[in-house]
């Protein structure tokens, strides 16, 4: 137990320090650009677009932290939030890993596996994009990537991702899945222009509320419980 507490403590200490340094470096990018081009936009020039962006993304930030941090675990949250692309990449990646290993993020093994998968995901994305940038700057690959034939594949990446994830999660938690699915279908018919940033909190809150009601009524007794510490792998081949 003492060991676990110190791991937990160190995750938060190191997470805060490293995230803080990264945040400062990210802030220094526009500072460096301003110094280099000797161009400092006036506050008046920035405030209008900044407020319009914050009006949408400040609530999104609050919702994302409240919703995603519990699902990614302690360490996973720090590296996940600093690298971004959470809901479309890091979070599904972590959850797929947890699912494959039959552990819950709230277990010790789950916390570690979540952190491992999110870190690997961050490394791969960073390297793929960096390599791509190198090729973009030195070759004609930009033309190849812009080929309209490839368009449908990447336009439908989320459909592909969530189709697969949906099968896994919906089949295992059908009762919990049904209310938000029905709500989303109705919203899709009634208000198809709602952005995903609005749909996520609606879906999450509604799903949790319905799950709570079902839980209190004893309708969820067969839900797979992964809250016990997952048995450590006893693979005799190791």
């Amino acid at each position, binding site marked *: 137990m003492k060991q676990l507490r110190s791991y937990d403590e160190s*995750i*938060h200490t190191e997470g*805060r320090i490293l995230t*803080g340094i990264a945040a400062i470096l990210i802030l220094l990018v526009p500072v460096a*650009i301003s110094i280099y081009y000797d161009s*400092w936009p006036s506050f008046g*020039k920035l405030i*209008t*677009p900044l407020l319009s962006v914050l009006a949408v*993304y*400040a609530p999104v930030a*609050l919702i994302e*932290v*409240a919703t995603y*941090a*519990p699902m990614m675990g302690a360490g996973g949250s720090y590296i996940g939030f600093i690298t*971004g*692309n959470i*809901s*479309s990449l890091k*979070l*599904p990646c972590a959850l797929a890993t947890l699912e494959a*290993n039959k552990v*819950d993020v709230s277990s010790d093994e789950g916390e570690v*596996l979540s*952190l491992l*998968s*999110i*870190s690997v995901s*961050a490394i791969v*994305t*960073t390297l*793929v*994009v960096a390599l791509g*940038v190198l090729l*973009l700057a030195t070759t*004609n690959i930009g*033309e190849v990537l*812009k080929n309209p034939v490839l368009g*449908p594949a*990447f*336009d*439908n*990446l989320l459909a*592909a*991702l969530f189709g697969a994830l*949906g099968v896994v*999660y*919906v089949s295992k938690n059908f009762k*919990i*899945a049904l209310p938000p*699915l029905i709500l989303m279908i109705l919203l899709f018919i009634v208000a*198809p222009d709602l952005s995903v*940033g609005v749909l996520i909190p*609606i879906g*999450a809150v*509604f*799903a949790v509320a319905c*799950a709570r009601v079902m839980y209190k009524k004893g309708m969820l007794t067969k839900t797979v419980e992964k809250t016990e510490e997952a048995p450590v*792998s006893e693979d005799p081949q190791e």
Partner: protein
Amino acid sequence: MHALLANADFQNDPFLYVIAGIVVAFVLFMAFWFLIKAIREGKRLGLSTKKLKDAALSAAVFTIAPSIAVLLTVVTLAGSLGIPLPWVRLSVIGAITYEVPAAQAVADAMGGTLSSAASTPEGFTAIAWVMTLGIMLSVILIILFNKKIQGGMKILKSRDPKWMSILMSALFLGLISAFLSSALSGETTDRTQPNVTIPATTGSILVSVLTLITSAVVMAICGLLMKKFKWKWLENYAIPISMLFSMGMAIVYNMVLPAALFVAA
């Protein structure tokens, strides 16, 4: 320098590559730091090397296709903003759905298109500032509150572990439902211009629906194979396989469906 990958020469100045490179290098360092930490703690908890390796490999495979999607966004933004700024912006915080509106907000305030706004150092700098400042809140919140949030989750788990498990499932299912709905919207991106989405047509919605169903079917087949033949190795790769196959099929569906379905209403 390729003419299509910049709006003005200054956007691809080597200095900008250096700044971007420094930030990206630090983020990479941070990811490796946590990876090593996770491996060490995993071994201490008794997780086998095989299990850790498998988890790492499947996370890597899972990430490749979405990473190329991120790179594609760099390509489309590069037409207006050059390469270095989109590179650093898409490697840190935020996501595709944020970076474009943030840049566009500055262009709107300046009364022009994104390309015209970014074509001068003044406009380019303003865009860099807004893109950066607008997204910092989530990182600040994580630094301040992550420990409390995780602590709260632990307390919740100790009080009512069953509800804790259900809560996590409900949160993610709410998320999946929202994304399923949005993924089926049928909107596509004009790859030559970052701020133009092509409105949905019957055809594009059909392609999305078919892609989703294909992915679900392949995933279900993988599940059956895993059960019947006990192919444990498939567990880690089923999702990437389903994704990549169905993304490939999206190209096929797009070609095969009648062109008339893709005309805007």
